[in-house]
Each structure stands twice: as C-alpha cells, then as structure tokens.
C-alpha cells in the first residue's frame, strides 16, 4: 500500500515549525512506527523520533496522530488511511510538553508531576509476620492503574494542562490513586488532603480526553473521580470541589432537578463575598437576557424551594439507593 505522511519538524538546529511530506510503499500490515522507522532509515535520516519495544510496553513512541495522542507502534497504518490511500497521516509531537526535536519531547514536566504524588507504597506500623492480604477486588481495581506505561498520552492531550501548567494532570493523579487506593498504604488521609489542594483532583474538568487517548485502559479521569469520592468520604470537604458535589446532591435530592442559582454560592461559600462579587456582572447580564431562573431563588432544602412534581417518589429512590453502596476494602494480616 501507499503511505502518505505529513510530519511536524522542529529542533535546535532550525527556527520554528515546518512539515515534511513523505510517501512510501509498504505492506498492509505495518504500524505507523514501522513507517516512520522506514522513513528514518531509507528516506530522511534527520527525522527524530523515540522508540524502543515496538509492542506497546515501553511507552516511548507516543505522539499525536491526526490530532490525537497515541502510541505509534499500536497504530495500524491501514486503519489510519482511507480506501483510495489519499489520506495524509498527520504526525506531530505530543502536546503540553516542550519539543526537543521533531517528534521527541522533553518529559521532565511529566516526571516532575509523577514525583509530586509520592509514587511508592508507605505502610505504617510493624511488618506483618507473613504477608499482607488484600482483597482480590481491590487488587483487580488497582491493576487498571498498574497498567500505566508512562507514555504521556494523557498529559499530552489534557485540556486543563493546556491552560494551567500547574495542574498535576492525569498520569500522576492516576498514579496517586494506585497508592491512595491501596489498603496497605498508611498515608491515605495525608495523600488525599494534599491531592485536594489547588491544582489537584478538583481541577480536572472531566472532559474524558485522557480516558479516550490512554492506550492501556488506565482511564485516568475515572481514577481521579475515585480519589474525589475517597476524599469526600474521608471528610476532606473544605474546598469548592467537594462543596460543589454537595450542593449538587442536595439540589437533586430536594427538587429533582438542578437549582442552578445556588450552584455557585453553594460551591464557593455564601460568605465568600469577593468571589461572589466577580459573578455579579455576569448574573446581571443573564438576568437582563431573561436567563436567571427566578423559580430557583430559594436555596435547596429551605421552605418554598423549587421542586419537581412527584418528589416523594424521588426521595424514596434517593433513600434506598444508599443500600447499593459497597463497603471499602480493608487490609488484613495472615
């Protein structure tokens, strides 16, 4: 088959960014990495890329392919091109990290964030005589995150990192879950407290981009959501994120639908006057446009608050759904 590649080029020896176009003949079975290596070996020896295992284990060859981060060794060229082989596969370095040359990025930011979450087990107390015994379901749950090969695809495409380089970002947060969620770890509370600070778990916008691009099914965002649930359960709720879930839950339990007017004061705190003042111009503009729901001016839970019809039946489901919650696993000694 004919393979057309459009590869982003840049590097210390050249100014700015340009694209090189390559066209090679290759077998239908090749991967994008095979194609790039073919180019480097036989067409253009100056093309820079990182790779090692060629079998989706080492995580070296992640790059953006047609706009989305993925492992080049796991991308079949046949699936990327179209039937008449006219589609030009656009290959670019990963995003959110500085480029060293062509498709090679500087991973320092990535590792710095991983180190930030103390990525090792910290048990407390005496070692058990034989071994720690952890329930099977817990270990199965943790294997999701253990599958991470540190390829950086999630960090590359994280939409929050795009606007805020301080955000700890998906890979490190998934790694944090791997230890905070391990019943053998003795520092769960401190971990959750640290993760609940600014730039941590509550700064994720839940866009699912990391879930989509992760080649190993780690689904980092889902791990972030688990950390949020654990933090709330641990009583670490003095932050806008936890309060937001609280007012949300209250609102649905009280009225069935969301009370949009009280979402903001409920999250930032009703006495947080400076923050609330920031929203005043916006609120006035919405009011002028007839978009401020007047029926929702009474906060959820107060007499006269806005309610859907048939709330008694909703309350029944809310009450009884508490019985569906599974207890969290504990570690035992054998």
């Amino acid at each position: 088959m004919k393979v057309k590649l459009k590869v982003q080029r840049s590097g210390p020896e050249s100014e700015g960014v340009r694209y090189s176009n390559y066209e090679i003949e290759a077998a239908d079975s090749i991967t994008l990495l095979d194609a790039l290596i073919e180019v480097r070996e036989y067409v253009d020896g100056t093309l820079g890329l990182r790779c090692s295992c060629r079998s989706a284990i080492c995580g070296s060859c992640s790059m953006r392919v047609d706009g989305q981060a993925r492992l080049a060794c796991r991308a079949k060229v046949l699936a990327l091109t179209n039937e008449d082989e006219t589609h030009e596969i656009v290959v670019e370095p990963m995003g959110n990290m500085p480029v060293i040359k062509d498709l090679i990025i500087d991973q320092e930011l990535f590792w710095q964030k991983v180190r930030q979450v103390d990525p090792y087990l910290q048990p407390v107390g005496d070692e058990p005589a034989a071994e720690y015994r952890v329930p099977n379901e817990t270990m199965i749950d943790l294997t999701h995150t253990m599958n991470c090969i540190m390829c950086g695809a999630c960090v590359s495409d994280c939409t929050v990192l795009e606007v805020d380089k301080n955000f700890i970002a998906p890979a490190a947060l998934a790694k944090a879950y791997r230890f905070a969620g391990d019943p053998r770890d003795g520092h769960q509370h401190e971990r959750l407290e640290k993760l609940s600070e600014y730039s941590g778990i509550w700064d994720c916008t839940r866009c699912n981009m990391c879930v989509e691009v992760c080649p190993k099914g780690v689904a980092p965002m889902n791990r972030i959501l688990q950390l949020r649930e654990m933090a709330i359960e641990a009583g670490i709720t003095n932050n806008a994120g936890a309060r937001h879930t609280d007012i949300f839950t209250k609102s649905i339990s009280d009225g069935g639908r969301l009370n949009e007017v009280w979402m903001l004061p409920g999250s930032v705190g009703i006495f947080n006057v400076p923050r609330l003042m920031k929203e005043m111009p916006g609120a006035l503009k919405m009011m002028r446009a007839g978009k401020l729901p007047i029926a929702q001016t009474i906060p959820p839970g107060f007499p006269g608050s806005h309610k859907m019809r048939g709330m008694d039946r909703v309350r029944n489901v809310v009450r009884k759904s508490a019985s569906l919650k599974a207890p969290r696993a504990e570690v035992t000694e054998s």
Partner: protein
Amino acid sequence: MMKYAFWPGCVSKGAAPELYMATNRVAREMGIELVELDQATCTGAGVLQEQNPEMGDALNARTFAMAQQLGLPLMNICSTCQGIESMVQDKLTKNPEYCAKINAILADEGLHYTPGLEIKNFLWILVEDFGLDRLKKLVTRPLRGLRIGPFYGCYILRPSAILGKDEHPDRDKYLEMVIETVGASVVDFEGSKKCCGFPLLTINRENSLKQAGNHIHEAQDLGADALVSPCPLCHLNLDAQQPAAKQVTQYDIDLPIIHLPQMIGLALGVEPTEMRMDHHVVSTRKLLAKLAAPATA
C-alpha cells in the same frame, strides 16, 4: 410519525429556556412527537456521581424505566446528559446483579428497567433517525453565507467506547454534516472537540474561562459567524460567560453561540423570536442580519 420520550434536562428548564422552546418548536416543524418526562430527575452530570454514584445510577435507571413504560426511545438535548445516560446504561448492562438491585427499588413505583433502551441526543436523531436528505428537503431558508463552528461538548464524544462508535463511526462528524445540510459552511477549529470549561467554573474560574475564551477566540479568528452546540452547559460557558472570558483572556471576542435546534429552526424558516434568539447574553443580531442580507458570494 417519529415519537420519543423527551428528557429536557435541567438547563433547558432553567437558565436556557430558549433551548426548550426551540426544541419543541423545531420538533413540531419536523413532525417529531415528544412526550416529555416531567417527573424524571437530573442525570447528575457526573458531579452527583463523585459523591454518590449509586444514587446517580438509580435515578437514571428510573428515567430509562419511565421511557420504557411509554414504549419509546429516549431523547435528550444535552451532551452531558447523553454521556451520563450512556455511561449508566453501560454499567447496568454489564452488571445484571446490580441492575436487579436497582430494579427492586424502582418496583416501589411500578417501574422496571430492562437494558437495551435506545438513548439519543437530538443530534444523533437528526442524522440517524430523521435523515439528512429528509432534513435538506425541509430547509426553506438555507443558511448560505454563514460560517459556523461546531462545538460538540465532551460527553457526546468521549469515551467513544460507550457512545456507539462501532455502530456509528461518524458520530464525531455529525455536527459538520448538519451544518452543511442546512447550507452553512463549516469552520474547522482545534477547540471544536475540547472542553468548554464549564465543569470548572465554580471550582477554578480562571481555568474555566480561559478554556472558553481560547475556543471562542480561535473560531472567531478563523472567520466564524457563530458556534453551534448540542450541549446547553457548553452554551452557558461560551455564551453567558463570554463577557467574563473576554476579561480573563483579554481576547477581543464577540461571537454568538447558538443551540443546535435553533440552527435547524432558522433553516426551517422558524422566526428567531420563537426560539428566543433575542435572549442570549451575546447578541445574535449580527448573525441574523447576515442571514437576512442577500448573499454576496
């Protein structure tokens, strides 16, 4: 006649009444009958799920069961609702035991959910059930000359594994297809499939508004006359928060944001005021004037 159980979502019943009006008006124009589920609850938008996923599952299963009681597929008009509903549906299909426990709770009000309900956003219905050829025939006022940027909203796209990508591989191109069907041209911009920032608004205002501002600026820079979205939460951050996003990013932005049913309505000849297009925070006047002016190209 096409008929759906209709879950309008919280925002179309609250801060975006124009979406509710436009949807009903356009459905009538297209001959789609909507049976509103007026006792269904919020999907939880992923936020309730952070604190209480089980409550979210039970309440969504209840909504599904209500649609099944009517014997109708479920229609939503919100990318976020679609994502959460698909996620819960996937979870209940994979865990029959868990689903049975939820059904035991729903039995109190005579409801039962059997996995397999069809749940579709209005965008998917337009393309898959109604058909773009049929839609094209209904167009009386082609949006010729308008350049419109598609803005999907995360949850209607990701994670694609639970959003029917295998059966419907083009779902990430539907907005572009619809824009072309109604006679407008597509503005292809990077932010189109990214996050609007809304979920962060109350938690990290600056990041949230930077996200919104960047996307609006990018599309406007590429010559967009408007953005269209199937998600009212995106609409809130892109329209209602646009003046604030302008302040935070210092970008000179002024771009009308329209709901998907409003765009369809315009093309079908519905009066803008019938879809409350005069009730947006960012005025749609410029856009409507361009539509009314004779095409120059």
